[in-house]
């Protein structure tokens, strides 16, 4: 089941590449759309069928891959991954729809997109560390090309920057990963990459993996790898560039999924597997005890302030992502139920909301061919539906209760407050600033007198609405009844080494 979901896009890539002629652009788009629906169906099925009360992984598939290093093809999902898989699968068809207007080399675009989807779904399903890393890296290549070929004017710079940053992070992660592998056994006792096994070993007193010093270093290695992806200050500067230059659908994927890969990794590896390392950086004591929370705080405030300074619509949204990922971090740092639940929920919700935001930016960019916030004005009267949806998305993003963004943020902060009082209070500044930049943007773009240049601007069309509505519904539904999501991963959270 999982393998099917992972590799169908890959198969689809081959179909698109080899079975469709270059001229048949419409066909290619339709085929891709249908292909991306399959993982979505599977993901929905998994979401429904997943046994919420059982802890641990389900739908596992496990077989030997590379015997020499005891590398296995081991996939499985728990509640945490299933939500993210669902998000990925959902954004798949939406992004294909959002890419409908691309006119240059659509076949290659779609093929790369499908490859990307395989990487992302695979990453969330992988239970073997090696496999995990392979999928992690697998997303790099298509992303590079997707930004680099189909991006904006500074696409080359943005693409290589993204690539270099991520690779930088992942090589450190590679070292940590190898070290963990080597420590997991000896020449006599088989070593392993199996994540569940490693988690158990790391808890076993006296085992080499449980050594705090080792865990701290390993933690750092993994952390930097994921931090670049999240991105955590000061590794974040690739993000505004990449987001701004990427085509709309790719920004959606970047913000919606790729950033989550970082935080997912933090939960899966740093949190679950390296509790001692985590403890060192999050226990609130000693020189390093506040590190993670401080980073979260910086992300929140710094990202928000930067967002406020932007005049490029897309860049603003990009920086807002940095801010919002800060809530995830600070929630993780809290290491308690509400913090962690909040963090995970925020991951999912931010995926949905930021996807909406980027889609919305794309809509207006398609019409006005620029994104300068000050260059609009008064669009509210010409594009009421668009304005309405944007307002919804903005409100969700600035954490309006009743919409999904709030629950994650609030839980993260509630959880964090019990550990890091001052930092959490300072972080709430992000809530105010968040409101400030969104409202200011709303004002500059939609309110006020209509900019005469846009007298003839057209309202959002059906296809675009179709990409936004599912996300909007999710935003509202999860805002009202977040338990739908929380039920999924409550057991998964309870298995993590929580500290009350």
């Amino acid at each position, binding site marked *: 089941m999982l393998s099917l979901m992972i590799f169908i896009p890959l198969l689809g890539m081959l179909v698109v590449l080899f079975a469709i002629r270059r001229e048949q652009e419409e066909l290619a788009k339709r085929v891709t759309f249908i292909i991306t629906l399959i993982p979505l169906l599977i993901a929905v099925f998994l979401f429904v069928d997943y046994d919420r009360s059982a802890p641990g992984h389900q739908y596992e598939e496990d077989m030997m891959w590379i015997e020499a290093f005891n590398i296995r093809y081991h996939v499985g999902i728990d509640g945490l991954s299933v939500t993210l898989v669902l998000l990925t699968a959902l954004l798949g068809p939406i992004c294909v729809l959002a890419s409908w207007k691309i006119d240059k080399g659509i076949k290659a675009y779609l093929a790369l997109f499908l490859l990307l989807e395989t990487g992302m779904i695979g990453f969330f399903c992988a239970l073997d560390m090696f496999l995990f890393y*392979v999928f992690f890296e697998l997303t790099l290549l298509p992303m590079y090309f997707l930004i680099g070929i189909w991006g904006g004017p500074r696409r080359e710079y943005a693409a290589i920057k993204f690539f*270099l940053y991520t690779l930088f992070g992942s090589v450190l992660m590679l070292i940590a990963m190898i070290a963990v592998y080597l420590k997991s056994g000896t020449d006599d006792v088989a070593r392993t990459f199996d994540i569940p096994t490693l988690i158990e070993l790391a808890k076993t007193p006296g085992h080499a993996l449980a050594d705090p010093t080792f865990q701290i270093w390993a933690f750092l290695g993994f952390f930097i790898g994921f931090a670049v992806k999240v991105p955590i200050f000061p590794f974040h500067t690739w993000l505004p560039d990449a987001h701004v230059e990427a085509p709309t659908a790719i920004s959606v994927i970047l913000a919606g999924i790729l950033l989550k890969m970082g935080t997912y990794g933090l939960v899966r590896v740093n949190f679950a597997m390296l509790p001692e390392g985590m403890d060192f950086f999050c226990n609130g004591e000693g020189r390093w005890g506040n590190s993670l929370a401080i980073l979260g705080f910086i992300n929140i405030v710094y990202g928000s302030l930067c967002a406020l300074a932007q005049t490029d619509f897309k860049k603003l949204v990009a920086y807002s992502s940095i801010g919002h990922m800060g809530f995830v971090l600070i929630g993780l740092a809290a290491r308690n139920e509400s913090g962690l639940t909040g963090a995970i929920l925020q991951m999912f919700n931010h995926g949905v909301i930021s996807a909406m935001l980027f889609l919305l930016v794309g809509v207006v960019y398609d019409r006005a061919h620029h994104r300068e916030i000050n260059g609009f004005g008064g669009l509210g009267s010409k594009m009421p539906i668009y304005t309405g949806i944007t307002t919804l998305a903005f409100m969700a993003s600035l954490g309006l209760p009743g919409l999904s963004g709030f629950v994650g943020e609030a839980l993260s902060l509630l959880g964090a407050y019990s550990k890091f009082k001052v930092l959490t209070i300072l972080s709430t500044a992000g809530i105010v600033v968040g409101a400030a930049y969104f409202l200011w943007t709303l004002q500059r773009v939609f309110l006020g007198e209509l900019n005469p240049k846009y007298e003839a601007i057209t309202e959002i069309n059906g296809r675009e609405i179709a990409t936004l509505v599912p996300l909007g519904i999710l935003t509202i539904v999860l805002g009202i009844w977040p338990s739908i999501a929380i039920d999924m991963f409550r057991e998964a959270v309870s298995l993590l080494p929580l500290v009350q």
Partner: protein
Amino acid sequence: MTNIASIPYFIPEIVLVVFAVVIILYDLGSKKTGGNGAAYLGLIGLVIAVITALVIGSEDRSLFLGMVRLDSFAMFFKIIISVATAATILFSVRSSELDPETKGEYYALLLAVTLGMYLMASSTHLLMIYLSLETVSLTSYILAGFLTHSPRSSEAAFKYITFGAISSGTMLFGISLLFGMTGTGDIMLISSKLGEMFSQGNVYPLAVLLSITFILAGVGYKIASVPFHMWSPDVYEGAPIPITAFLSVASKAAGFALFLRLFYSGFKSADASIDWSMMLAVVSALTMTVGNLAALPQQNVKRLLAYSSISHGGFLLMGGVLLTSEGLQAILIYLIIYLFMNLGAFFVVILIANEVGSETIDGYRGLVSRAPLIAVSMAIFLFSLTGLPPLAGFAGKWILFAAVIKEQLYWLAVIGLLNSVVALYYYVRIVKAMFLESSDDTESLSFSPGSLVLLLIFVVPTLLLGIYWNPLYELSRASLGKLMG
């Protein structure tokens, strides 16, 4: 084993010599007709040599009264070298650089250099080592300067030979000192003598250090490690592209074979007083860093790949640092993978040089629209060279780093991996030119089906070995044989 008894086990080498001579004779006879007969003869010779080698097997034997050794380690390298030579022959056939009139000698020389490399992989006597090294070197000088009417080629040959002569002279001096201390040229005996000397304290460590470092100069220049690397960018740039490919792969592989044999079975016993590991680690770190940094600003793709191959030499050396079987295995595996990806990249360079007539990055602009298959293949090779999963380069990198980290050389691993980030940057410059930029010239390029098939021969392993590389591991373990004692 006596001389006469050894001959049956020496058939592959003899085959090479015979075919070299046959090619020259054939060439004399068919001077006017041109064609690629000589090339195919060379290929046949190689195939026969490999087949006979496989038939003979790799049971551990010392041949010619201890001059050379037939073991699985040598066998491994012989096959690698043969594949590289075969590829070079095929490349040469498709290269428009070479003068068809002198192709006969060219292929004969290629077989001769292959013979030299075979011997490098199997020599166990200092004299044989020097001889085989010189055979390879002299032939390489000639091959590098093979192009008529090309100042670059002549300059390359000149620099190569000057550099090579000094290095091998230094090496010979080192050999003489070692001979003077131990009274023998057999590296096994040297090993035991050195061990004896060190254990008795009857030794002047500087003398050992100095002589081995001098010998390292000869080996280091073959594998282009810092500070013996400086010839390689110039020579790679000036030499005909097939030869560049050949030098970057086969010559390097042979150099590593020699290096490993010397250090693993010869000098290891001198380990007691001198931290070879540290020395090699420093050299390795320097090599990859220098190679990568210098590659950054290059515009000429050949030169860029030259620097990249220097840095890959550094990577490989990292495995040699450890003096453990994991490290050795990693080198062997990396070599196989490197063989495919690097040769593949050079083949693309040849094709582009033929069709576009340019060796600079600018010549690759917009390649994806002109020749998508070539561009995609090149991207695969380059990303594999960077070491990105799921390409073969990653598997190689992975095994190497696993070995390094196992020995707790974290600093080396960090340097190595940071280097791979730097490497990404310059590889991506080519990718960028191919995919992200557009050229004024948009007509699509056509390539012969043969070229494309040949390209696939390199692409497929680069992809497959990234996904499943267990067999490589098994093969490398088998190839280590008794080398580690």
